[in-house]
């Protein structure tokens, strides 16, 4: 039997297509087993459902700055206004476009748009709310990610794998809190003191706060909480005896955009 060149190419082409499709179908219907299992660090901080309470009564301007500084330093977040080589300094408009931030300050009317009451106390307007990823219980970003590069852990932490991310930025469109940043350009020339215990990022991937998952695993509190002098608290929402539950029990708290159903897990005492 002979086969024409044309038929050969046709058969080869279709086989490749089916082969690729079949691989995905298998993955979807029968997901692969985890190949290796790691024993967790016995000192690790664990929870059934992580949550954070931000006590705005205790959070002054300086403390807020310290929290931001601590987080951005250990996670190698670039500062476009302070490059290693002064020649690389970007103009203010570019800084707005390219900015990467995991935790940052925002006034009340921007943190809680649509809830700007007429007769709110003057001091609330002056406050700088610390904003970060809300580690939503029903995260829209996780729903839309086409590669599972962002996912919710069993303990509620919304994680981000910058090595799987394809940079489609669908999660940025989905996040109602503006918690996600994209690497519009190489961040490395803008990291003055690199912390080698945490990876720097490449061009073209999305990043955000991971509640310091890497620190929790070692038994350390998130960097912002540690720097906050008690203004920030993390704990287990499912544990009625936890510190966050105690704070929630004894104080009136608000959350950002609860009407959207994402069930954010950062609570603010004002």
């Amino acid at each position, binding site marked *: 039997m002979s086969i024409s060149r044309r038929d050969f190419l046709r058969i080869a082409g279709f086989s490749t297509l089916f082969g690729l499709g079949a691989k995905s179908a298998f993955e979807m219907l029968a997901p692969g087993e985890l190949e290796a299992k790691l024993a967790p660090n016995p000192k690790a901080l664990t929870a059934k459902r992580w949550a954070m309470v931000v006590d705005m009564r205790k959070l002054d301007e300086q403390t807020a700055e310290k929290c931001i500084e601590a987080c951005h330093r250990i996670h190698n977040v670039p500062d476009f206004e302070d490059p290693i080589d002064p020649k690389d300094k970007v103009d203010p408009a570019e800084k707005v476009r390219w900015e990467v931030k995991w935790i940052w300050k925002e006034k009340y009317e921007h943190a809680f748009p649509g809830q700007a009451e007429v007769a709110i106390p003057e001091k609330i307007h002056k406050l700088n709310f610390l904003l970060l990823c809300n580690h939503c219980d029903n995260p829209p970003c996780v729903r839309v990610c086409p590669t599972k*590069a962002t996912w919710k852990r069993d303990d509620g932490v919304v994680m981000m794998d910058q090595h799987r991310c394809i*940079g489609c930025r669908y999660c940025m469109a989905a996040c109602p809190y503006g918690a996600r940043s994209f690497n519009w350009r*190489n961040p490395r020339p803008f990291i003055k003191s690199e912390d080698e215990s945490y990876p720097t990022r490449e061009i073209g*991937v999305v990043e955000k706060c991971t509640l310091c998952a890497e620190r929790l695993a070692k038994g350390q509190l998130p960097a912002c909480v540690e720097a906050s002098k008690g203004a920030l608290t993390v704990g287990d929402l499912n544990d009625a005896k936890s510190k966050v539950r105690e704070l929630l029990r004894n104080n009136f708290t608000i959350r950002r955009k609860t009407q959207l159903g994402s069930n954010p897990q950062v609570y603010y005492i004002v």
Partner: protein
Amino acid sequence: MFEKALVGTKRYFGVLGFLLLLSGIGFFIYLRQLDFGLGITGMSRDVSWGFYIAQFTYLVGVAASAVMVVLPLYLHNYKAFGRIAILGEFLAVSAVSMCLLFIIVDLGKPSRLFNVLLHPTPNSVLFWDMIVLNGYLFLNIVCGWTVLQAERNEVPPPNWLKPFIYIAIPWAPSIHTVTAFLYAGLPGRGYWLTAIMAPRFLSSAFAAGPALLVLLCLLVRKYTKFDPGREQIQTLAKIVTYAILINVFFFFCEVFTVFYSQIPDHMLHFQYLFAGLEGKGKLVPLMWVSIVGMTITAILLIIPSVRKNETTLAVACAAVVVTTWIDKGMGLITGGFVPNPFEGVTEYFPTMPEALITLGVWAIGFLILTMLYKIAVSIKEEIRA
């Protein structure tokens, strides 16, 4: 049949050369984007999708509109469209090719593209978009090519093709519906959070695609010995008329709900696009040109004499293409991101490198279109000779 694309007049190769040059420039700048990052575009933390995704959205519509030729032919046995079905299908092939390229140039890490297959995620609409777009490309290549081959050999199309032809009909609206669902299901984006998004997408698609096809038919008649036919063009014109009327109607439905309800999350985006916010409103003139132009064109197209005169019809079709393009290619994506989740205004406008890469992708699409049309027209001429 492909050999037909490799011979031709000087003018044919002139067009190909010009399109190659444009795509070459685009490719060269794309290499720069790969090196520097998407920072060479106007996109930002706040407006994180821009021109690329907007072109993608518009072109999905153009691709879907092939069904407006195929459906009357195969479901209503409207024989006249047998003459131009191939033009619709090949337009769809080139449009979907551009869509896929626009997705690729928009990715931050195009080298990881296949992660979408390696880690299939059915809860992501993007996953389904990948499936429907590639499926649609495949269907149109198979259907178009096989029918053309049969026509050349002067035999009826093979029977095995029938299921593909019938599947392709509902598949066409599905690509644009899924593309609308990319946006219409995001909780924090008031401009997109509307159930009429997919219907609006379809109405503007079924106006813009056939309008483009009318223009292409007129060009084919002018520059080749193949006449797509007066009746065919007139029927397309009626499709354009009804679709653009429905599109204008849908727009005003949207405006009513948004402004009568007075919900700020939904109103602010319209206010940015049509009046400007915080003194910023780069898109305001364009958006007014789009909606006013679209409405006037829709009214003019109702008048039979405007439609029947092919010169005024061509002008109206061009107006439909341009006004729907502004609506989807400029307003839709940016409007969804402004204001941002903090009700702040960061504006967006494409940069020069971004515009040139976009032009390059369009050039590749038109290169594919020109070659496919050359093949189709050569075969039509050959049969007639």
